């Protein structure tokens, strides 16, 4: 033992060895079993209430660890003693316990469990708990939700389904990213991403993209979660409150998202093939000026600048080519040209599953090819293979589950998102190609947008997940289990910029311009989490205790380099041909994490439940002595509907009050921030490169703390056909890690340290589920969720002197924008006017930006309906959000500049006395201040961006088949089909004019299995 103790870094290795040897241990134990008495073979058929055979029902002989599964035709066969008891169970059906009483044929009908709530088992990460007994706030999104949505990223499929979770798609391009916030923004700095765990392996969701390579096309963000095929997901659980997240300690502050992939089903080996085609288009075009309007405003603007005379002088034509050199009658709808295409996605998936009651497997592979709405042949391809094997020993003491997933993504997009060009290209801009089909430069008077198709952007991403979960029942009550996980994420991307893609008038050559930027990044991590679980029940008590420990290590590195200057453009992809190679960043990072966690769950009389969780975490991100932190939570529930006085109440079928309080933390602040470091600056003295002190030793660098409180009421009526869950939460985040200004005498201007600022998130969440109609043929269910969040910066000592003084205000949310207050256009001067807060007759940056607008949603939610009638079923989800957002004035507020603008700018001031919303046009040639720039930063540039969106609709038809083994389904799905909004901009979900908005998509697919 002492040797074991001293072996330091080798302990995880020893643990793995120990765990791997467990199977042999279990076989040894099995060898000594006592011979069974003589057996009888019992057969029968399991059917639904309607008489339809039911496959996959689990049949267990109570006295032994032995069981069988009903086949597709509902038949089963099992060996048991004449006096034994059979237990029939299946998710969604009531469990039946049947005495054999010497019979050799037992056929039964399974009764559907109407409430089904008891059967909903929530995965809380280290443990599972039934929805009814849960003391915490855990939302579950099931496979049927993912199966019905034609999306690429699991986060996309969750939009609108979960209360308290705000997900925003950042680009309509395939392979792009998402922003996700669970119960609001907790921290002033750093990311709001929750902790993602895929089949037990923490998955770093931070992009390794480099903005130099993918900034202009993906915004630098490439979501690693794209590697997970939504169709492979069995369920996603979102852990929201302290009770559910405290067991994740320092990583639980922003919530936890648990992704569980599908597993094999026992029974006959089944093959499932799934093919679908999706068409996607931009759902909304902006109303832009036509050529006449545009040229009118242009001429007016140039005249207003005082150059009206020169406009008629041919010598100055090159100043305003759009007005003087290009055809004035020409009109191109550039939105049609550049983002008006149709994106196709083809999906092929093949899976094989089966097994017996001891071993089940699932192997699936899929391939996806997706194009864009842009011109050119850009595409995104994804190939994915996944397998899951589950095995347990015959005595059911030992079990092992192996899940493996490998994904290859290949993303070849243009180097720039054409959306900006589509909104701003002059309506009379020249044609793209000349008569010979070459790129038309119109005598070098414009930058042809399609020339950039000569440039290449490519990102290749390989993601590997592997996780093994082994468990062994030491005694009836005590179980040992451990997961051993590994993940490897590689991103190799490049961007080539040949000189041929640039206007020849610029005189660029391969030698002085052509460049090729490469980003090679990799992140690997492993995790081992051995656990002991003790479960015991008495007459009135149920006890469930868990103790475990975590070892995790993550190593990442990134190299971004650029080759500049090539003999010719053909060699651009070869770095060795470059004249100079610049290294932009060559970084690596290591993160180690160690924890001890535990849980005590106690139930009394099925009415009173206490759940106690705790975690002690150690992270390499903090200084010596500050590496460890304690976190914990207490959750309690009272199922008052189980009290004697409620039993008689027919209407109320379930009632529970639960409350929890817990502490979590965040170490999501980057590695090595506490160290006193020297960095290479790139400069030199006498050819000796410099090392500059860049970090001051900060041993006090500690965790960000987060305290979560929640109270909830769960009520079910009419056998839970109406179920309402209402919760109120209050989360306080303190000890914020931010840059604290230091006195110069320290040698540094700023230090990242814990600061006494507090952010509070409060909110109400409502979840309603109803089963409106339930019969043999017709079923109709409705779900509704609503979140009313509120974010507030409660305190921030020294905010005025800090670097955040222009961003935050105490008492206001973190999501505010500080703006000028626009007072409209002065009818006399025709210029925008603004409120002069400090009364100095000058509108200046900080003092006069006092108008505050909150850009976070006021409320949001979703309304889903699911109707099935015979072989038909239909699902639809409306998503709604009440919010303010930047409108098109944010991007341009003065008409008359070169480049098209929204048509709304045509309504401008033209003469004294005009009451117009837009100021007089300007050609952008006069010096001095452009008040339009202030208008863009004013409250006028923010307006209502609330919307109701038919996020998803799906129609499914199960083709009747004479062969009971064959299942054939055809479906039609739509995404973002209809949006109701007053928003003035491309898309209210992602209010930006530089990124492609989320697409409207239609999918036709079929699924066949036999």
């Amino acid at each position, binding site marked *: 033992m002492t040797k074991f103790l001293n072996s330091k870094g080798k302990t995880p290795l020893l643990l793995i060895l120990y765990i791997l040897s467990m199977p042999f241990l279990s076989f040894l134990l099995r060898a000594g079993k006592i011979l069974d008495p003589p057996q009888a073979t019992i057969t029968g058929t399991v059917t639904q209430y309607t008489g339809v055979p039911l496959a996959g029902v689990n049949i267990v002989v109570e006295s032994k660890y032995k069981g069988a599964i009903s086949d597709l035709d509902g038949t089963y066969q099992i060996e048991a003693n004449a006096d034994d008891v059979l237990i029939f169970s299946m998710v969604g059906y009531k469990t039946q316990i049947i005495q054999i009483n010497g019979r050799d044929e037992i056929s039964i009908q399974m009764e559907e469990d109407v409430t089904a709530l008891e059967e909903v088992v929530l995965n809380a990460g280290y443990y599972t708990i039934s929805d009814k007994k849960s003391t915490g706030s855990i939302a579950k999104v099931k496979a049927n939700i993912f199966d019905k949505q034609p999306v690429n990223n699991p986060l996309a499929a969750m939009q609108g389904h979960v209360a308290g979770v705000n997900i925003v798609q950042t680009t309509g391009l395939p392979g792009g990213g998402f922003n996700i916030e669970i119960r609001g923004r907790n921290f002033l700095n750093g990311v709001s991403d929750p902790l993602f765990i895929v089949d037990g392996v923490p998955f770093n969701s931070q992009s390794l993209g480099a903005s130099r390579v993918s900034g202009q096309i993906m915004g630098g963000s490439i979501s690693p979660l794209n590697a997970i095929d939504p169709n492979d997901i069995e369920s996603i659980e979102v852990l929201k409150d302290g009770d559910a997240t405290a067991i994740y300690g320092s990583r639980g502050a922003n919530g936890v998202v648990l992704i569980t992939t599908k597993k094999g089903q026992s029974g006959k080996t089944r093959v499932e093939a799934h093919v679908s085609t999706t068409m996607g288009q931009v759902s909304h075009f902006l109303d832009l000026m036509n050529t006449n309007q545009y040229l009118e405003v242009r001429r007016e603007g140039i005249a207003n600048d005082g150059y009206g005379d020169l406009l008629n002088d041919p010598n100055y034509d090159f100043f305003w080519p759009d007005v003087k050199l290009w055809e004035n009658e020409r009109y191109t709808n550039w939105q049609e040209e550049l983002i008006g295409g149709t994106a196709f996605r083809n999906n092929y998936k093949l899976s094989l599953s089966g097994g017996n009651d001891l071993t089940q497997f699932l192997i699936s592979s899929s391939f996806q090819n997706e194009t864009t709405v842009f011109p050119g042949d850009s595409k995104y391809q994804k190939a994915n293979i996944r397998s899951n094997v589950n095995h347990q020993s015959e005595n059911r003491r030992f079990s092992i589950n192996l899940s493996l997933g490998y994904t290859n993504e290949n993303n070849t997009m243009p180097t720039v998102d054409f959306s900006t060009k589509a909104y701003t290209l002059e309506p009379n801009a020249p044609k793209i190609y000349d008569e010979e089909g070459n790129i038309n430069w119109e005598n070098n008077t414009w930058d042809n947008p399609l020339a950039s198709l000569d440039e290449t952007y490519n990102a290749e991403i390989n993601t590997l997940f592997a996780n093994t979960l082994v468990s062994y029942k030491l005694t009836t009550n005590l179980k040992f289990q451990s997961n051993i996980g590994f993940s490897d994420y590689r991103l190799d991307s490049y961007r080539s910029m040949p000189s041929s893609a640039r206007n020849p008038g610029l005189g660029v050559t391969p030698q002085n311009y052509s460049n090729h930027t490469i980003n090679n990044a990799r992140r690997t991590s492993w995790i081992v989490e051995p656990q002991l679980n003790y479960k015991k029940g008495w007459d009135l008590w149920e006890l469930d205790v868990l103790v475990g420990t975590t070892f995790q290590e993550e190593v990442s590195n990134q190299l971004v380099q650029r080759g500049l200057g090539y003999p010719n453009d053909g060699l651009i992809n070869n770095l060795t041909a470059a004249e100079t190679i610049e290294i932009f960043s060559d970084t*690596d990072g290591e993160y180690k994490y160690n924890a001890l966690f535990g849980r005590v769950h106690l139930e009394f009389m099925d009415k009173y439940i206490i759940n106690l969780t705790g975690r002690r975490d150690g992270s390499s991100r903090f200084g010596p002595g500050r590496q460890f932190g304690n976190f914990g939570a207490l959750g309690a529930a009272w199922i008052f509907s189980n009290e004697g006085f409620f039993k008689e109440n027919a209407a109320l079928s379930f009632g529970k009050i639960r409350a929890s309080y817990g502490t979590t933390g965040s170490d999501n602040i980057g590695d090595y921030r506490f160290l006193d470091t020297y960095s290479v600056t790139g400069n030199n003295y006498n050819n000796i*490169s410099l090392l500059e002190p860049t970090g001051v030793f900060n041993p006090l660098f500690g965790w960000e703390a987060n305290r979560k409180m929640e109270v909830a009421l769960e009520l079910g009526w009419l056998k839970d056909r109406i179920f309402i869950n209402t919760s109120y939460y209050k989360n306080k985040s303190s000890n914020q890690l931010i840059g604290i200004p*230091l006195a110069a005498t*320290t040698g540094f201007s700023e230090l990242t340290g814990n600061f006494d600022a507090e952010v509070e998130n409060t909110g109400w969440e409502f979840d309603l589920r109803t089963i409106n109609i339930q019969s043999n043929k017709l079923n109709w269910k409705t779900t509704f969720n609503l979140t009313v969040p509120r974010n507030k910066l409660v305190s921030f000592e020294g905010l005025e002197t800090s670097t955040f003084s222009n961003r935050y205000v105490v008492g206001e949310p973190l999501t505010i924008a500080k703006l000028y207050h626009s007072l409209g256009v002065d009818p006399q001067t025709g210029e925008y006017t603004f409120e002069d807060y400090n009364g100095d007759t000058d509108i200046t940056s900080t003092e006069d930006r006092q108008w505050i607008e909150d850009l976070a949603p006021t409320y949001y939610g979703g309304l889903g309906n699911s109707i099935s009638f015979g072989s038909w079923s239909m699902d639809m989800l409306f998503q709604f959000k009440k919010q303010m957002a930047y409108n098109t004035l944010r991007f341009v507020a003065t008409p008359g500049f070169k480049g098209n603008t929204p048509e709304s700018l045509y309504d401008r001031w033209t003469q004294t006395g005009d009451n117009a919303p837009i100021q007089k046009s300007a050609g952008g040639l006069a010096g001095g201040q452009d008040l339009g720039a202030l208008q863009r930063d004013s409250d006028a540039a923010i307006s209502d961006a609330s919307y109701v969106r038919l996020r998803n609709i799906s129609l499914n038809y199960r083709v009747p088949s004479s062969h009971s083994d064959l299942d054939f389904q055809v479906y039609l799905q739509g995404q973002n089909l209809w949006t109701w909004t007053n928003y003035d901009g491309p898309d209210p979900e992602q209010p930006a004019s530089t990124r492609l908005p989320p697409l409207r998509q239609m999918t036709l697919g079929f699924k066949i299995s036999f």
Partner: protein
Amino acid sequence: MKYFLLKYPLEKLFHGSLPKYYHQLRKVHLIGMICTLCCCTDFVEIDAPKNTLVSETVFQDAATVESALANLYYNLREGGMTSGTYGMTTVMGIYTDELDYYGFGADYLQFYQHNVLPINGIVSDWWSQAFQLIYATNDIVQGVRASTELSSMEKNRFEGEALFVRAYLYTLLVNLYGDVPLVQTTNYLDNNNVARSNQDSINNQIMEDLERSILLLNSMEPVSTEKIYPDEYTVKALLARHYLRSGNWERAVTISSELINLFPMESDLNKVFLKDSKETIWQLKADNDFPKNTREAQQLIIQAVPSQTYALSNDFMNAFEPGDQRLMNWTRSISDQDSTVTLYYPYKYKAGINALESFEYSVLFRSTEQVLIRSEAKARLGELEGALADVNLVRSRAGLSNLIAHSQEDVLEAILHERRMELFTEQGHRWLDLKRMEKAEEVLGDIKANWKNTDLLLPIPENELELNPNLLPQNPGY
């Protein structure tokens, strides 16, 4: 190896409330302990990343310490009080009677017009940069002393250079700001609220640093033949300057004499500022790529009128005696197109931005200054003959006749004048001279309309007073 127990929250929350189950919890506790036998702080300790070095590692290898030192010299050349761009050369030039300012920078105008505000950007930049480098020198001194891998030769050299830089920065800080904080550790918690020390204790520290530095650098082989690293003689040059300022005349004479012998004055005025000038004691090497030569030349040489930022003042130009060769060799004039305006600019550094090779480096210490130090020290000691001889040494190189003076006051006056004409636009000597000789009010009172006695010290940067109230009170007059 440390163990930790699951003390929180199990025990805390359960204790007392559920005593019946406590024995069971203790069992769990035990299981927990077994589980945690392998948990330890060692696991969460990591190595440093490759793009940065942990301070400790830097000092285990001579090459990385060289890099840390190179950072000091680079920063002395490019920023703060000693830089050729916005250092004392230009800024104290316009603060005194050397230069006129033609630019529009508000911070510069405050200096030029003598209404410097505590929020002045230059005031705060000089301050910040100095302490940034002082932190770096402290870390080097501390790191080198603790290092186990460096040889004693290396340790001596590195510590000696770092101590010198620290002392040099403090001499400038004390001159400009008066009482300043004496920072000798790298602990930000202490340094963040350090109070100001009085000038005497800072002067003692400077002296101590310099004396130790001389001991450490004593008879060491020069690192470079270009005199671009401070060595024993650089330290002595600063020491001589410092003795003169603190009234230790005898020692000033001894040390400057030693340096004058070792670094003979260049006889040709046009060679004084070349990079291989014999009289240079220490210079900062120019950047190899750009500008190849000095920032001073880049800053002061007027390319065209009117687009000048600085020009020599009329007052200064009028002070040249007839026949002074320095007028011819060290200044130039330029006129506008109509020849209505003629301006003079310093032409000590002649290699501008168009030079294709490195000809000149930025000189910080040269032996002519030592001659004038010895002269002044002798004058103070009453050795008027010797003092005059030294002044005449400088005068004769400039093509001027020998001076004859009788009173100590006259000799000192002559020395001040000679320093003015010899050391103009070099690291703010004029300002330091006027202060040392207590002539600032007499000279500047007439020229600068806003002159106040309190202008002898710059204000402590406003922002720093806010961040660290221990620096209060502000210097008088601000």
